[in-house]
């Protein structure tokens, strides 16, 4: 067997496709733990809320490829790097020439939820659970979404739009803590409230109430919140269980270089499971577009003598929250200068974080024009000019900046260093 890809998420599927395209004479086997693989995980919130049909969740079918095998419902028990083989839970072994680990993560369930033995608690992560959730929601209307992640916010918004009673509980700080500044988060939070979502921020989880085997309430931030369903979307933790003892882990993390190569040059990693060490930092973007490009790059690098690094490690994401469009361009950074444009009455906030004049992140809330251009600007690593800073002003068109006289930029700096 030539290549094995572990994981049937988007990173795995992209890797398989890219591998077949880049190395057409190598056979590829993709193994996945779920019964179904190859669906758009990002659509699960819509699916749960009934906004999208199940058949629309799956990747468009590819033509028959004799050199591509997909094994579903198969779990890996362990990896033996020396012998270059995987031991499966059913006892079989598969040997490989090259391996891509793209099996993603497990939903993170905080303390008491992980051990709670009752109905009505579901993580938002995989299709199997999503199906059960959807079934459950047919006769349960009072939903509590736990978590401040993108998935949590999306789930809450879609369910609310579908007519459910929705509370969103965020443990720390504000919504989208890892992606937005407090100011930007405020705009999103206001919008969520306008949608009719009861928002509880900075509300650490304290207790659970169970009635007849079903969750009936949750105590967070000192307040009891009644509910009949609890959806957990508090992020994922990389699944490294079968890698224990393989020698690939550093402090429990699967660390790869920017070319997505692990410490074993025959093994690559992509997607949520990978932690990329670049420029003295450890980065795990955990976004869909990153999973796609990592899967692709890992596959392209499989047989290269000098694997090429992935250069764009930005954590870009976009979503539409029923009337509020937003793009996150990268998380807030301590000590960064902030340039922003704000029109709270129109639910618009556009901000960029600069370090040494170079944009490193930002967010566009309510008006996402020029998002792609700003992304390209961040990726280029250049010092921002006043013309480019003008891109922050919302505009339907005009993504190529129109040069402005120097000095105007000062007017854009609304908040000083943080």
């Amino acid at each position: 067997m030539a290549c094995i890809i572990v994981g049937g998420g988007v990173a795995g599927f992209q890797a398989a496709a890219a591998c077949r395209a880049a190395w057409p004479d190598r056979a590829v086997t993709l193994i996945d733990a779920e019964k179904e693989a190859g669906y758009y995980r990002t659509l699960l919130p819509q699916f749960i809320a009934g906004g999208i049909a199940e058949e629309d969740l799956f990747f468009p079918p590819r033509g028959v490829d004799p050199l591509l095998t997909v094994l579903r419902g198969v779990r890996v028990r362990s990896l033996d790097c020396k012998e270059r083989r995987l031991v499966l839970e059913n006892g079989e072994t598969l040997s490989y020439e090259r391996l891509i680990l793209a099996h993603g993560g497990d939903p993170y369930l905080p303390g008491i939820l992980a051990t709670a033995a009752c109905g009505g608690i579901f993580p938002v992560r995989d299709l199997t659970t999503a199906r059960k959730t959807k079934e459950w929601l047919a006769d349960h209307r009072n939903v509590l979404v736990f978590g401040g992640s993108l998935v949590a916010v999306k789930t809450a918004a879609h369910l609310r739009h579908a007519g459910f009673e929705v509370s969103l509980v965020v443990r720390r700080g504000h919504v989208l803590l890892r992606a937005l500044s407090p100011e930007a988060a405020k705009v999103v939070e206001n919008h969520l409230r306008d949608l009719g979502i009861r928002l509880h921020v900075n509300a650490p989880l304290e207790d659970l109430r169970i009635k007849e085997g079903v969750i009936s309430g949750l105590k967070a931030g000192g307040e009891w919140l009644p509910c009949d369903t609890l959806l957990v979307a508090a992020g994922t933790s990389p699944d490294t269980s079968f890698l224990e003892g393989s020698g690939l882990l550093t402090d429990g993390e699967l660390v790869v270089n920017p070319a997505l190569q692990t410490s074993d040059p025959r093994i690559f990693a992509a997607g949520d499971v990978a932690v990329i060490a670049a420029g003295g930092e450890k980065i795990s973007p955990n976004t869909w577009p990153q999973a796609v490009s990592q899967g692709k790059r890992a596959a392209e690098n499989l047989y290269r003598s000098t694997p090429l690094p992935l250069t764009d490690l930005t954590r870009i994401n976009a979503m539409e929250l029923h009337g509020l469009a937003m793009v996150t361009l990268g998380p807030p950074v301590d000590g960064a200068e902030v340039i922003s444009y704000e029109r709270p009455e129109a639910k618009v906030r556009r901000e960029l974080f600069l370090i040494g004049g170079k944009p490193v992140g930002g967010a566009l809330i309510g008006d996402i024009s020029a998002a792609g251009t700003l992304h390209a600007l961040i990726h280029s690593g250049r010092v921002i000019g006043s013309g480019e800073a003008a891109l922050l002003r919302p505009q339907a068109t005009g993504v190529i900046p129109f040069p402005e006289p120097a000095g105007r930029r000062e007017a854009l700096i609304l908040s000083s260093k943080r």
Partner: protein
Amino acid sequence: MKVIGIRKDRCTGCKTCELYCAAERCSESKTLLGAVQEAPAPQPRVHVEGGPNDAFPLQCRHCLQAPCIDACLTGALCRDEASGMVLIREDLCIGCWTCTAFCPYGVITPSPERKIALKCDRCLYMENPVCVDVCPTGALEVVDLEEIEKLLHEKRLATAKAAAGVPEGSLLLLDQGRSVKS
């Protein structure tokens, strides 16, 4: 592969391409005077960019390594094998706007009313793209990339030949194709 080429020296920034693109590709009536009366307002898929002296119309470049295709959550953005173009399957687009955040040219536009992203498809099912047809100065043209490659190759060849004939230490003025003694 055919693309819409731009003669930058000819663009006057009149935005005719924008108006007629919106009318032809996004309106019910297909005429400009009719389109302006429609709601939601039709959106163009080409935008005139740049400043007073360097205006140019910009639409999807159909990148060979298109970041939007990778970014698309639903596979709505795909490459049409026959034409080589990047197309949006509107039935699959859910309006998540991820592609707009990945297009470095900023030429994918959200249409919040229709909940889909819009981009240029070079008027695939028409004889000629509207913007090319309507440009009053001929600044837009459908060009074959291979033809352009050929032209560039010829130019490189001519330059190389000219450079080879220049005595050492003298200056070659490429535009004139002749050398000047230093």
